[in-house]
């Protein structure tokens, strides 16, 4: 049971990573990151159950809170970038390089 949960979590995490790597839209990338975090949350829950300790579940609560905060900040930043570039396509956003 535990290995299935962990495997599932790993697959989800990988999907998130691949999404970040392949997509060029800032919002989609951000959503993929959220997917990664939630994959980890799944692991935490499973492991928490495995060890019979509450730590993992506490951790998940923190992660969810922080993810929410991150979402708030992130969307604000994406809006700000949209104001400047009229686009959230990362391919257009490379003033800074070298």
């Amino acid at each position, binding site marked *: 049971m535990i290995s299935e949960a962990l495997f599932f979590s790993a697959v989800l995490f990988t999907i998130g990573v691949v999404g970040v790597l392949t997509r060029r839209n800032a919002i989609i990338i951000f959503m993929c*990151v959220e997917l990664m975090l939630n994959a980890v949350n799944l692991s935490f829950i499973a492991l928490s159950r495995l060890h019979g300790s509450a730590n993992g579940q506490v*951790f998940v609560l923190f992660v969810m809170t922080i993810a929410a905060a991150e979402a708030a900040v992130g969307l604000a930043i994406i809006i700000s970038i949209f104001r400047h570039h009229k686009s959230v396509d990362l391919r257009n956003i490379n003033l800074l390089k*070298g």
Partner: protein
Amino acid sequence: MYFDLSIPSQLAGALLPDLILVIGAMLLLLLSVWRKESLGQARLVGLLSIVLCLITFASVVWLWRAHASASAGIIAVDNFRWATDCIVLAATIIAATLMIDYSEREQLVSAESYVLLLLAASGMMLLAASRDLIVVFLGIELMSIASYVLCGVDRRSSRGAEAALKYFLLGAFSTGFLLYGIALVYGATGSTDIATIGTAVTGETFNNPLLLAGIGLLIVGFCFKVAAVPFHMWTPDVYEGAATPITAFMAAAVKAAAFAAFLRVWIEAFPGATSAWIHPLQWLAVITMIGGNVVALQQKNMKRMLAYSSIAHAGYLLVTVVVANSLGASAFLFYLVAYTLATMGAFAVVIALDEPGERNQEIADYAGLWHVSPWLASAMAVFMLALLGFPIAGGMGFFAKWYVIDAALHAPHPQTVLAVILVIASVISAGYYLGVVLVMFMKPRASDAVAVRPVQTGTFLVIYLSAFILLLFGVLPNGFVTLARDSVPISMVNAPAGPPVTAAASQ
């Protein structure tokens, strides 16, 4: 003074400086939104945030002087924490000071940036204190989220926005790795408490793939935060795009706090798995030292050059993590003091010479600076030489590097090769640090060069105090050496510094 961390009130006592800072920051946030935004109001918030930092600083010093100690728990009450707190707070004060001058110059009305600085600082202090991976995560996120916003604090700047976006996306991405790493370590050891993990990770268990993958992902997460190659690529862009005081803050404080947590986790949680992580970390240290320096050679923009320089310094600091013992921690702290002063001083000079809209930042713009403002150029030369690690003229920078090399040579597994590579990397770095000196002192002033404006008070103080402290303690580093030596994580205080090194030339 003794804190029993299982009692909430005593836990609060042990977190006194953190609480002061957070509560103060909240109050300042209220103040900053209380009235219509104006430069004057923002300035007031800035000054108050400096005062708040000073109060926090005093409380840290008070606890430090009182030899506070505590039972085992989620936070550490030890000198390492206090020392890191002091460095972080000092960096915050410097950043706020620079921010006040910078905002005035750029007509940037942003009272909230000071509050964000304070919040980031509180995250850093939490990192310095953390003895539990949950706290580590909280600290990192608190610090990072505030930093994401800080990067884009100048809403008029598209470069600032781009920096914020890149930092945010990549930061969140790396958080995923860090978090996954924590999860796996938790899975392998059944605990998020660092000390407990430390006892669990021993010779027998460390072959657990869960644990190894966890350690590996933790390395990725931390290395992103400290900007180690190849997880560094956000650094130059973000440092260049962000407002200069924020860049200075990130280059010094963010890196310091992330490293503090990195070091503590490594010293307390994973010594049992040394043979597993030492080679990857060595390689990371090597490519960071070399990579940061060689790319810095190519830079034309001062901020970008300093960004790559900060990457190279992350490589030097990684050496202390590789060593991961009390000597490494002392070397780390000492290095951090010198590095913070030098790098923030350098950014302060950049701010002093800045033209509105962040122009006049190319290295070529500094040509002949010595002829028009000799003291500013001299101070910059001191910072450059300090970053290079040159004795006397570079002040503490030399002893910092010295300390790191000493830690490398004196480690239980002597890192002679790393020490030699560190030295070679330093030689490479001479190419660009001296390049700045050269441009300032040996090139003539361009005919179309912008006139140097009088340096604003805050910036002035930052530049010359930093230079003065660097130089003073570069001659007589006794005080800082003693402090650094006594400021190792609590778990190391009674442990020996490793077996006396015998005559093995290399490991």
